[in-house]
């Protein structure tokens, strides 16, 4: 469904992605981990066509929607208008299914998106992406700036969309615990290169991954 081969993306003279190859099969949910500046969001922007590759190929086998990092709503437009604009490409104008999915948004539909709580804004961002009736979803930093219980709730929604509707998901996260809990497989991106990949169970035992993303031994450190 999503496949990149030897993808190179540059910002001016700086190389943001260096020969990145990854694939996500139809119906699969795959995580992409990496620290700030690793090129995760650059990859997301390239997959959704905002950035063009300098070399390599991107293949998307269907319609792809992008939930960008930092939610990126239209703050002065209402929740309803934010959702409606999500249907720009698909022509979808019926927002009822989004409110069914996120009942918390139903009461806020006439409010400006900029005044909502972080969790509700993330729901709008996901809902807006779903309005394009996608086959695949790239979710960039779902948990960023959200309380753990709000993140859990949203993660539950993404897992259900994947399990029940067969939505293909590429989950870009810094929170490795969350990502490992949701996905079977993961890639680790550092400085624009894929440095590790494999089943989450294996990666969770990789000392480098443990040191960088899990804050020491699994089960120790901070609980989320």
């Amino acid at each position, binding site marked *: 469904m999503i496949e990149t081969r030897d993808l190179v993306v540059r910002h001016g003279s700086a190389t943001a992605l260096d020969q990145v190859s990854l694939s996500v099969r139809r119906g699969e949910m795959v995580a992409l981990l990496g620290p700030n500046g690793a090129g995760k969001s650059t990859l997301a922007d390239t997959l*959704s066509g*905002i950035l063009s590759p300098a070399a390599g190929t991107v293949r998307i086998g269907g319609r792809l929607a*992008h939930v*960008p990092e930092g939610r*990126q*709503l*239209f*703050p*002065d*437009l209402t929740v309803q*208008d934010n959702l*409606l*604009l*999500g249907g*720009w*490409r698909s022509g979808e*104008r019926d927002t009822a299914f989004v409110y069914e999915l996120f009942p918390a948004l139903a009461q806020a539909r006439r409010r400006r998106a900029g005044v909502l709580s972080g969790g509700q804004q993330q729901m709008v961002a996901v809902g*807006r992406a779903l309005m*394009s009736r996608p086959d695949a979803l790239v979710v960039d930093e779902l948990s960023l700036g959200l309380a753990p219980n709000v993140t859990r709730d949203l993660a539950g929604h993404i897992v259900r969309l994947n399990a029940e509707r067969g939505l293909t998901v590429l989950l870009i996260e810094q929170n490795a615990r969350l990502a490992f809990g949701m996905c079977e497989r993961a890639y680790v991106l550092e400085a624009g290169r894929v440095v590790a990949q494999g089943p989450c169970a294996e990666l969770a035992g990789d000392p480098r991954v443990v040191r960088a993303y899990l804050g020491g031994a699994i089960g120790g450190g901070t609980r989320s």
Partner: protein
Amino acid sequence: MSEFLTYLVNGLAVGCGIALIASGLVAIHRVTGVVNFAQGTFAVIAGLSASWLLGAGLPHGAAELAAVLIAAAAGLLTGLVAIGRRGTAPQSSLIITLGVAVLAYAVEIVAWGDQPRSFPGLPGSVTLPGGAEIQRHHLLVVAATAATFVLLTLFFERTYPGKALSACASNPYAARVIGIDVTRMGLLAFLLGGLLGGLAGVLVTPLRPISFDTDVLLMVNGFAAAVFGALRRPGLALAGALLLGVAETLAAGYGYAAYQTEIALGFMLVVMVVQASRRATIHEEAV
């Protein structure tokens, strides 16, 4: 009293002309984030074209319509130069529009000469019960402006393409994420800006002859009104424009005609200082 009423209606008509210039500024800024300094130029091009076309024998109506379309084309052309290249920062585009406005002087002088031109508007006048006399053309300007603002507000706030245009200014990155072609929408905004500027030109020229450099006066007034609406709100810009128009006409009517531009500049300065201080407060609250 009847004298005051006449000045008041004159002032409203002048204010409406200013409001139409401001509406074009708002339409372009709302979508692209660019302050278009060529907005007065669109009005000048339309006014000069209309006078030229009427002189060439075109009937009223057709000449004005053609002039507005010429201004719209000028708007699109300005947009292509100012934002056509992807990734041009709004500040750079602003400077480009300033350049377009100066370049237009040369084109206008070559095409229409450097003397002021005018043409007659709607003839006749009506007398109010109080004895005040009001020119029909003033009423036409007021009615056309009212209709334009109603349509513009409905377009931006009620229609899907209008919301998509607003989305481009609200968050250009997000607009691209959901598949909106931001550059194309920006060009559409410049086309709309040209149309609105052109409408201002053909309506205002019969009130006050215009020449190639009238755009400065139109721009100073239009910008002052647009700033009153924070360059985003057509309704507030209209209120600011009417206030300006009436203030200037009253000043002129009672013998202070030389101070018209200073009134606009002073008005703009006060509004900007007040808005800047308010914005600072909002930032502090957000932190």
